[in-house]
């Protein structure tokens, strides 16, 4: 069941990705990105990463994809398609080589472990649920990176405003 869901979602993600890169119409490219991001959120669900799936949806689909659509709307010249670089075959070749290389590496490497194991529940379920949980980690061990990420968002917000303000 999960396997089926994975294959469906993975295909959707790849089709969306290909749409971003090959669509002539910019808006279709943005839609392709949206589909891909949503599919990846589904992938996270198959990996028992519920919180991450939600975060992906909210931030990527609900935020970034919308921002990109705005950008496309604001900057698209209606009669100009999303054109490719002069040297696009080289890019394609590099991408294909990367894919082949990475695929080879995946299959032939001894990763630390390859068994799926029991279902995990990263968010706190009931009081007796075992295992480690995301909130515990995020607010104890990884508290400092969390705060740094907050500072990073502050810098980005202020920076974007400083640059894009109307004079």
């Amino acid at each position, binding site marked *: 069941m999960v396997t089926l869901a994975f294959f469906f979602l993975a295909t959707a993600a790849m089709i969306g990705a290909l749409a971003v890169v090959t669509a002539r119409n910019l808006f279709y490219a943005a839609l392709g990105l949206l589909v891909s991001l949503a599919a990846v959120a589904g992938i996270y669900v198959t990996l028992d990463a519920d919180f991450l799936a939600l975060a992906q949806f909210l931030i990527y689909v609900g935020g970034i994809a919308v921002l990109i659509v705005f950008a496309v709307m604001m900057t698209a010249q209606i009669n100009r398609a999303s054109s490719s670089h002069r040297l696009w075959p080289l890019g394609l070749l590099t991408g294909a080589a990367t894919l082949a290389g990475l695929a080879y590496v995946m299959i032939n490497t001894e990763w630390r472990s390859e068994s799926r194991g029991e279902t995990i529940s990263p968010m706190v379920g009931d009081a007796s649920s075992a295992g480690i949980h995301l909130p515990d980690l995020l607010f104890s061990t990884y508290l400092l990176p969390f705060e*740094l990420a907050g500072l990073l968002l502050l810098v980005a917000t*202020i*920076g974007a405003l400083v640059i894009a*303000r109307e004079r």
Partner: protein
Amino acid sequence: MNWALLLPGYLVTGLAFGAFTLDLIVPRLSRTVLVYGGAAVMAAIAVFIILSSDGESSRFAGGILIFDTYSVFFFAVFVILAAVTILGSSQFVSAIDSPGEFVALLMMSAVGAMGMAAAGELITAYISLELLSFSLYILASYTWKERRTNEAGMKYILLGAIASAFLLLGITYIYGLTGDTRYDQVASGLSALSPSPGLIIALAMLTAGLGFKVAAVPFHMWTPDVYEGAPIPITAYLAAASKAAGFALLIRLVAVALEPVALFWDWVFILLAVLSMMLGNLVAILQSNLKRLMAYSSIGQVGYLLLGIAALGADDPTKPIAGMLLHSVSYAASTMVAFMVLLAVWQQTGKEGVRDMAGLARRNPFLALALTGALFSLAGFPFFVGFVSKFYLFTVVATAGARFLVPVGIAIFASLISLYYYLNIVRQMYIEQPEDGAEAIRVSRTMWLLILGLLLAIVAGGLYVRPLAEAAESAAASILAGA
């Protein structure tokens, strides 16, 4: 968790917040207060950091951050560099629309840099790197009304984001192979592995991502354009602090986390080093814009530092680490002097070409003297700290193994090449006639004092380097002690 350890970070962040809000609530905030106050408090923080360090190593939250002498060393360096940049941008700040944010972003970038030096774990290292980078993307685009800056800023963020993606893939594979992101766990995980395709790809990606950050060849393409397009104080900061931060991260990463594979991978760093030294210094000869010339020269300097990274696989990595620390500081200081002189000239004349330096000796002897000192230091002339740091670094690398003899020879040759184009600038200043109508260059008292201070520092470093060298050596020992 000992929160008191984070005090330097709190102080600088708090100061940055102060700069943000002060600009907001005080209606016509004096730029003077912002710049001088900011720089003064940063300097005080640096002094506090140095005085309060007790030589002990502490780990924070199980190794997320490591506060040892190495961290303290770099904390002081970054805070001082930020303070110097703030002071140097006093005139720049009076002309821009958002002065508070400018100063605050410089401080936040210092926080990111400090995180990169103290990170004991890959996630923290990455977030700190991005904090530094984002601040720099914005700062480099601050004068976005100019076309050059605009284009350079876009190029910087795009290429930076791509490099980040590569770096992340490398970190991900390391995590997949070893199961943890903390440096010491990664090291024990890696020592249990034999080289596999996954490991090679992981290391390649890490090298690519971090290579971009420090502008090593062949990942250097962004440097000349971004250095040219950014406002001069930010170019100075990029050349000095951003590179130092990149190496702060790289040194700890390779010396601690990647230590089992350092020997296996050192030829890659040697290759990158040789390419950087040769390409950086050769192309610098052709440059007519001083900012671009300094950009290529800094690529060459990175080559020397990369040789140090390559030497980390040898039996005793303490010496190469100390050498790199010493050379980073000497290079950062010398570069700052050079850029501050360029800034002073530009503020009066609006010109930044090599030819525009003609007759500087007559127009302002002090500036000419300072620039000469800086360039000689960068080239490695005796009496300046650049000579000492290069000598130290080259010696320790050469004694690290027979395979380093040729690269060090190339390094010495590259230094001679750099001497050529540095001397060309000196010639312009002292021998060439100034253009008709060129007037004396007046320098504000702040700049004068700042340049004088830095110049004295690089001369003092050249004559009496013992305190700095000892600091570098104890910093080096402290990273390895924990591992």
